[in-house]
């Protein structure tokens, strides 16, 4: 009975979400008094795999077939299930990101293991096995019991944090038969923005809304983002008007993000937008209207003109660095 975590890599590199997953799984394994295994799929260098030890991993199974470098959820789910069975895992943990959402449900059906997605913290109890997750798009929490013997969890981004440790990692190649007939989905083209900070990964996000009044006024937003090493985002009316791209839209039907810091400039705070940002650790709001709903969910607020406040924040941050 052990715990296995599937740590995704992107082009052979792990991200903070992978490390957070390892930290969580380690803590979970400790609570269950059992051992943990980390599974990696795709070609990843040994040095990179060893990084997992910095967050508590002591054993890593790697499936380094180059065919599997890009996600094909059926193949990945097959491997996760087989790996879980081979190590006799009771709990399988993944990150709640695009790949986790694709793989975890399949693993759940394969192993008849109850699945709870986007779990917020370590289990509330073990007998019965109960975990806590957000429900009603962030308006409440639900306690869910998993009744099956095997259990699948995906953990929400930024719910647990990174716990550093220093473990020696034993790396083992996991040999598995890969059924190529499972590859029915073919990738024709891939586009990835290389130069900007990716929104779903960013720790700090600077976001702006209709309060900026015109697309020509975005320079202070981009300047602050650059100084903070942050990603830029926007509210729905802004992306609907075409002022910013759809990939920047944060909200209930846009991206739901969970950065450490979310700065909302000229955003009123409509309920659909808040649904996309309520998981942020800290929210800062800048708006000329002191009655704006955003101040109801923000931790810090400034009533002022964004065109004035944003450059001053950028300047202040620059000064504090030097």
């Amino acid at each position, binding site marked *: 009975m052990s715990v296995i975590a599937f740590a995704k890599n*992107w082009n052979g590199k792990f991200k903070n979400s992978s490390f957070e997953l390892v930290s969580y799984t380690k803590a979970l394994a400790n609570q269950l008094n059992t051992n943990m295994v980390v599974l990696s799929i795709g070609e990843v260098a040994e040095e990179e795999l060893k990084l997992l030890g910095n967050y508590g991993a002591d054993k890593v199974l790697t499936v380094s077939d180059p065919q599997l470098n890009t996600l094909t959820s059926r193949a990945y789910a097959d491997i996760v299930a087989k790996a879980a069975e081979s190590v006799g895992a009771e709990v399988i943990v993944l990150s709640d990101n695009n790949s986790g959402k694709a793989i975890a*449900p399949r693993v759940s059906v394969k192993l008849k293991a109850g699945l709870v997605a986007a779990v917020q913290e370590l289990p509330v109890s073990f007998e019965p096995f109960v975990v806590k997750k957000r429900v*009603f798009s962030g308006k409440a929490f639900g306690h869910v019991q998993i*009744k099956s013997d095997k259990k699948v969890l995906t953990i929400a981004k930024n719910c647990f944090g990174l716990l550093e440790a220093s473990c020696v990692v034993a790396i083992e190649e996991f040999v598995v038969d890969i059924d190529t007939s499972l590859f029915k989905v073919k990738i024709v083209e891939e586009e990835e923005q290389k130069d900007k900070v990716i929104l779903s990964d960013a720790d700090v996000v600077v976001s702006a809304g209709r309060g900026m009044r015109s697309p020509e006024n975005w320079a202070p937003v981009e300047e602050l983002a650059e100084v903070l090493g942050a990603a830029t985002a926007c509210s729905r009316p802004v992306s609907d008007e075409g002022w910013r791209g759809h990939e920047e839209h944060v909200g209930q039907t846009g991206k739901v993000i969970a950065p450490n810091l979310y700065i909302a400039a000229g955003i009123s705070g409509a309920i659909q937008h808040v649904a996309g940002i309520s998981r942020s650790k800290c929210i800062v709001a800048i708006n000329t209207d002191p009655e704006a709903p955003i101040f109801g969910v923000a931790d810090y607020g400034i009533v*002022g003109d964004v065109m004035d*406040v944003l450059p001053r924040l950028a300047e202040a941050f620059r000064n504090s660095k030097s």
Partner: protein
Amino acid sequence: MKILVCISNVPDTTTKVKFKEGDSLFDDSGVQWIINPWDELALTRAMELKEDAGNSVNEICVIHVGGASADATLRKALAIGADKAVRIDACPADAYHVAGQIAEYLKENPFDIIFSGIESSDYNGSSVGAMIAEFMDYPGISSVTSVNLDDDDIQVNRAIPGGKQVLKTETPFVAVVQKGIAMEPRIPSMRGIMMARKKPLEVKPAAELEVLTESIKFELPQEKGACKMIDSESAEQLVDLLKNEAKVL
């Protein structure tokens, strides 16, 4: 080509969420029920594909696992333009159960494309779509932002962090869709509402299936502390606070 759209019946976005019976059940008194927003976008896209004369889509069916109180929502889906609605008469206890019921229906009634919204706005499980794909052993694509049919050539766009992938696949397959799959959700026209009365709404008995998880209780989040206001004249203070107090910079 036939398309199946999985519909979830959820409380309207502005609902004030409350619980009853010792916080173990959602209090649905006075709640306005709507089609799950992502499922609505999926249905809109299915309608667009059917209306495009260049495709061979000739039937759109919507399916829901739930009780009779969801019939009004299913009629709305018919009014938007679906040809047929099916309700599996069962309590949607968990994602595994819901996906299993839909899979049982699919085994008797095959479809070429199955659309599912990426999550439902009530329990945010984001599991049902991919589970259906696994039950049926179909290819499934998640985080889908666009589906295009050129005759029978299927092209699907998938969102990845910071970009997108363009994929090709074959029927039957499951598309788990998110924002971008359609621009605006369709609303029913008067004509659609009148025609919905005559469209079939089949109620099917539930199959025997296990339920693997159970909701025990709910909890409202703690009241967030009041927002700390900083004078716009001393905006620089904020940087200090973020660094030293909130520790997020």
